[in-house]
């Protein structure tokens, strides 16, 4: 099958396999050696590299923004959007004043395939697979929900102790290498100021907490910023989002990613639930990838701009 020779000829308007995304990442790094590098923060249970693209214009351990997609493997529009974001960043740096200002002072880290074993499995065996792929001792069911495995309210209501459940939290917090690798990286970096984890679907922008009704101490600021971000998002195609704290907007969920990042002191912690626009669910047609990525980018820029303008 024709492989694109460069990222300009990469087809962002269709879904790709894990190897196509990995080679896209390598091409992007090769084409932009002064802006993009690839860091392998660990490996998945089945031994796949956990690739993180670092966008940096210099400095040492600059304040940073984290974006991840694909932690739930079947949410294909998120990995596809993450690929588009990567190209957008290199295209807009030096052209878009806001992004250029951000990258002149901050770094952006982007993990596109955050659950590679699950993603490969959706291509090879089960399109509906959501979790990781590690076997669970004593059970015929494999996999842990990587968005219930974080050490934040871990094991509380809002996750399952049944390995066959889609929301199985795992035997202990950070038991999954896909999660532990991010935990270790965030802790060793120590200077993240925003953390955005992207899911689909249901068109929501959420902030902590999911495991407790106790409001986040920055609730007012997070709420106002979320409102601005979804307004920017809707300005492109009118896609309507709801927003609020996880527990008040959807349901109680324990062991969630952004509850942990917020409790690490990363104030601007958000989860996106990207579009469905009505009837496709996880099987969003490929012709909606680029519109989804474009509208989401506007919301991401709102959050990144606010982070840049409000150092802490």
């Amino acid at each position, binding site marked *: 099958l024709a492989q694109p020779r460069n990222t300009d000829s990469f087809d962002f308007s269709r879904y790709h396999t894990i190897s196509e995304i990995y080679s896209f990442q390598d091409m992007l790094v090769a084409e932009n050696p002064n802006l993009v590098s690839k860091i392998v923060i660990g490996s998945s249970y089945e031994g796949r590299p956990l690739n993180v693209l670092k966008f940096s214009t210099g400095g040492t351990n600059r304040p940073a923004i984290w974006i991840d997609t694909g932690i739930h493997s079947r949410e294909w529009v998120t990995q596809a959007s993450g690929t588009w974001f990567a190209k957008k960043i290199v295209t807009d740096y030096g052209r878009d004043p806001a992004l250029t200002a951000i990258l002149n002072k901050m770094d952006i880290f982007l993990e596109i395939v955050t659950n590679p074993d699950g993603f490969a499995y959706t291509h090879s065996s089960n399109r509906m697979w959501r979790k990781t792929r590690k076997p669970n001792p004593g059970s015929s069911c494999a996999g842990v929900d990587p968005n219930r495995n974080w050490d934040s309210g871990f094991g509380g209501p809002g996750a399952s102790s049944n390995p066959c459940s889609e929301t199985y939290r795992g035997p202990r917090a950070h038991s999954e290498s896909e999660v532990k690798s991010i935990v270790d990286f965030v802790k060793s970096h120590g200077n993240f100021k925003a953390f955005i984890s992207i899911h689909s679907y*249901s068109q929501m922008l959420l902030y902590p907490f999911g495991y407790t009704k106790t409001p986040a101490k920055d609730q007012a600021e997070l709420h106002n910023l979320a409102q601005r971000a979804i307004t920017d998002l809707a300005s492109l195609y009118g896609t309507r989002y709801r927003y609020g704290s996880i527990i008040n907007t959807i349901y109680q969920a324990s062991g969630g990613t952004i509850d942990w990042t917020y409790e690490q002191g990363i104030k601007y912690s958000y989860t996106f639930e990207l579009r469905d626009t009505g009837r496709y669910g996880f099987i969003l*047609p490929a012709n909606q990838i680029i519109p989804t990525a474009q509208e989401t980018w506007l919301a991401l820029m709102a959050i990144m701009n606010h982070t840049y303008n409000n150092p802490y």
Partner: protein
Amino acid sequence: KVTFEGHQVLRILPKDEAQLSLIKNLEEMIEFQVDIWMGVTDVSNPVDVRVPFQSLQFVKIYLEAQNIDYTIMIEDLQVVLDEEQEEMEAAAR
């Protein structure tokens, strides 16, 4: 490869809190292997559930008996997945 012939995705429209908890009960009935695509939030938001072919009749009877409204969001999941796969392969070629 796991296939999904005859699986349907139902978009359930809860009218009130009582119906929300009945839908929650459905989620817990793991013998019917329903897969929650969009979970219960509050009354004004739909709940999307993938129902395997062999559980379809029961689930629909359960919903209709409780007078819970639903629509069929995806008639046959495998048909949609086949289209997605064909599109990927065609675009790659």
